[in-house]
């Protein structure tokens, strides 16, 4: 066995990680990297094309929008919102979903029935409508966007994880641990969780991609952060009106969302292939 774990040697994982880490770094270091204040307007230079196009200005590498704000700076600052939502919302959804899934799968019986039906009912609402209703009820703002995503998407974790917990619980080492005197809590954390963790990690990285998209949708319809905070969905909404004058302004935020979500998905897929015991257990022998 070499020192580098298998999942770090996968091309997919490395590609996904490179993309995700780049976006995360952009978000973290936004004030240092961004050439301009994202909200600084310069009405003399509106609709500038990117620097490499005809009439571009090197001071605004990706051009400006209808109010003369620097597109690049806004994209970089927009990454902050996207990453915050991606990380907080997916962890929130994961915690609720995973706890319920382990309770349902491990104890079975009435607990399983109750949680199972709850998920059924929850999942019968169309997710976009549900989150819009939630947003209307909760009001706009970043915290409520995260809350809406958590409340909608925990079911995804619960469903998928429960079946995995069920499979692991059926293996003899779980009753064996109980017979050795392990408490339920210890059995779940020591025997079951390590087995479901790979799936959990995979799901979370996929969920992050979904969260980025949902945040973009909500900010597109103006239900996310206020107008003073740059967000990708908002940029798309702004640029939509001027699509013929300045297609660049529409393309860049879309590209950003696309690349970020692709990064999360490739990472998730790579992790699934390298962490899933069903695919690796046989080769380890």
């Amino acid at each position, binding site marked *: 066995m070499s020192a580098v774990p298998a999942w770090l040697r996968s091309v997919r994982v490395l590609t996904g990680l490179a993309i995700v880490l780049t976006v995360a770094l952009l978000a973290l270091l936004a004030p240092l990297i961004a050439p301009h204040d994202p909200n600084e307007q310069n009405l003399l230079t509106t609709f500038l094309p990117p620097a490499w196009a005809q009439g571009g200005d090197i001071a605004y590498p990706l051009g400006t929008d209808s109010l003369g704000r620097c597109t690049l700076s806004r994209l970089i600052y927009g990454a902050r919102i996207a990453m915050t939502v991606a990380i907080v919302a997916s962890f929130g959804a994961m915690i609720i979903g995973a706890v319920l899934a382990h309770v349902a799968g491990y104890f079975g019986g009435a607990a399983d029935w109750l949680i199972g039906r709850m998920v059924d009912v929850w999942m019968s609402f169309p997710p976009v409508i549900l989150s819009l209703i939630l947003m209307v009820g909760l009001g706009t703002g970043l915290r409520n966007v995260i809350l809406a995503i958590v409340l909608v998407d925990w079911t995804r974790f619960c469903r998928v994880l429960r079946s995995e917990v069920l499979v692991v619980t059926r*293996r*003899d*080492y779980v*009753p*064996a*641990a*109980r*017979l*050795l*005197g*392990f408490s339920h809590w*210890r059995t779940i954390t*020591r*025997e079951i969780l*390590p*087995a479901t963790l790979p799936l959990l990690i995979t799901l979370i990285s996929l969920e992050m991609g979904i969260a980025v998209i949902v945040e973009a949708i909500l900010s597109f319809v103006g239900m996310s952060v206020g107008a003073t905070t740059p967000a990708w969905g908002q940029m798309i909404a702004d640029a939509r009106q001027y699509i013929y004058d300045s297609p660049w302004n529409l393309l860049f935020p879309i590209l950003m969302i696309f690349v970020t979500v692709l990064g999360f998905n490739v990472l998730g897929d790579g992790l699934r292939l390298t962490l899933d*015991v069903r695919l690796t*257990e046989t080769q*380890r*022998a």
Partner: protein
Amino acid sequence: MILQARNLTVSANLDGERVPVLRDLSFTLDAGKVLGLVGESGAGKSMVGRAIAQLLPPRFGVSDGTLEFDGKDLVRMRAEARRVLLGREIAFIPQEPLSALNPVLTIGAQFDEHLAHIGVPARTRRERMLDALDAVHLQGADQLLTRYPHQLSGGMCQRVLIAFAFASHPKLVIADEPTTALDATIQARIMRLIAEMQERENTAILFISHDLRLAAQVCDDILVLYAGRSAEYGPAREVFSRPGHPYTRCLQLANPGIHKRRGLYALPDRMPGLRAYAGIRGCPFAPRCPLAIVQCTLVPPPFGEVGADHLAACIRAERTAEISAPTSSPHEDHAKDTPILEVSALTKRFSTGGFRRSEVRAVSNVSFILRENEFVGIVGESGSGKSTLARLIVGLETSSEGSLTIAGRNMDGSREADGHCRRHVQMVFQDPQSALNPRRRVASIVTQPLEVNGDATWEERLARAGLLLSEIGLPPEAAARFPAQLSGGQRQRVNIARALCAVPRILIADEIVSGLDMSVQAQLLNLLAALRRERHFSMLFISHDLSVVRYLCDRVLVMYRGEVVESGAAEQVFAAPAHEYTRTLLAAVPPDDPNEMWSGLRA
């Protein structure tokens, strides 16, 4: 001559290196004869069947020699020509009947498809199906055709597959461990059926098995394989009663007899992998052979004659008979009179859900006493309630009626009673693959009981793991391995070690030696016997294998449909069974001496 192999060599291409999997195999099989291929897992038995069907795994191929079927060269035959032969002139009976049938199609649909493949016209197919199912003694063939595989028992599925195999009147049937997945009583019936079909059709059968005793009963000739090479080849009874190769002799001595109690010869270690053997110059068996001398490791042994038509690859074949099992048997009455476990009138009912509720009694009114230091065996077919009884005793199931007393305390379901049970009773689960957490290292697994209170440091646990590993005969470096890096036998040792770490007074072992090779089984049985001398514990040993129970246990309980139908000293129950069911079970075991009639086969 139906099948003939001459110097057949199959090689695998592992990372650009050519490693022989089968080496220089030569055998012949005539019409109406049965040839047994015997050996431990990994010996290459199934590879022969796969070579015939040309279903070798990727990167495996026949690299030398010939394999002829009915005068036609199977190796250099075109794929289309082979397809015509397979299923028609060459048929297969698989190891796992349930996984060989498609679960979403009815038996009728699958049979129809098979008959279509072998070219039976649509008009006559139904009649052919009914005839074929009739021939394998399946009643109500009409209804059977509309059933799905999961609605049938394993034995019935295997009969259906035998009907499939013989439907085309094949010249050759390859049966790859056809009874390994089945109960002993069904094993005898299936073997009888195969013999009957074979006699009727004058078919040649290639019988692949790990059980030398069974092969000696049903085969005409036996070829013993070791590490992909022929160890011994000759008439079945001759090979069994006068083995020429030490390996055959050891296999025979590793098998606990059903009639006479004797010690078991446990071959040390196990057959190493392919790669290790590729470089060996001398006899591949030499490292484990009790007769090995220096010369054995230098020159490959010639496959020489040791009797009429009887060949063995050993330079010391004339001394093979000198190998003998240890005389000590595990029984020097260790049992004390104090009862440690008292089960009285224990009953477990399961109710099936739905509108029409019905009840099944998995365990019904079972009473017995287990004394200190006593080994009690529980035997019975699958579904007889053995495992449910075990789960009731350890508290994984709660009983419907009856009482359970462990070391003087009644198990009333209270928290204290549970704790009492955990301290005194441990269970070894059947399948170590499932019972060992694949993410823990061996040291962590065997010392798992120390985790409960959480006050043992990792150093303390490592020290304890070292002691346990030496006790169960594993090298100390195994402590850092994962279960997936161990062999089946080693995993089962780890499984036992974990239960022993809790220092239980009662050990419950559920089929812990089934599905293992004979030599590994012998190693484990000897280990349990040795542990008993040192550790002083009682054991409930659940098994479907009567010879194993007879070897290890002082007393035996025979279970049938949830009830104990007979109990008593093992010696007595097996010598003079009182209950009809016990007699059926005993008759199903092939006798120790192949010249003796196997009543299960003839009845």
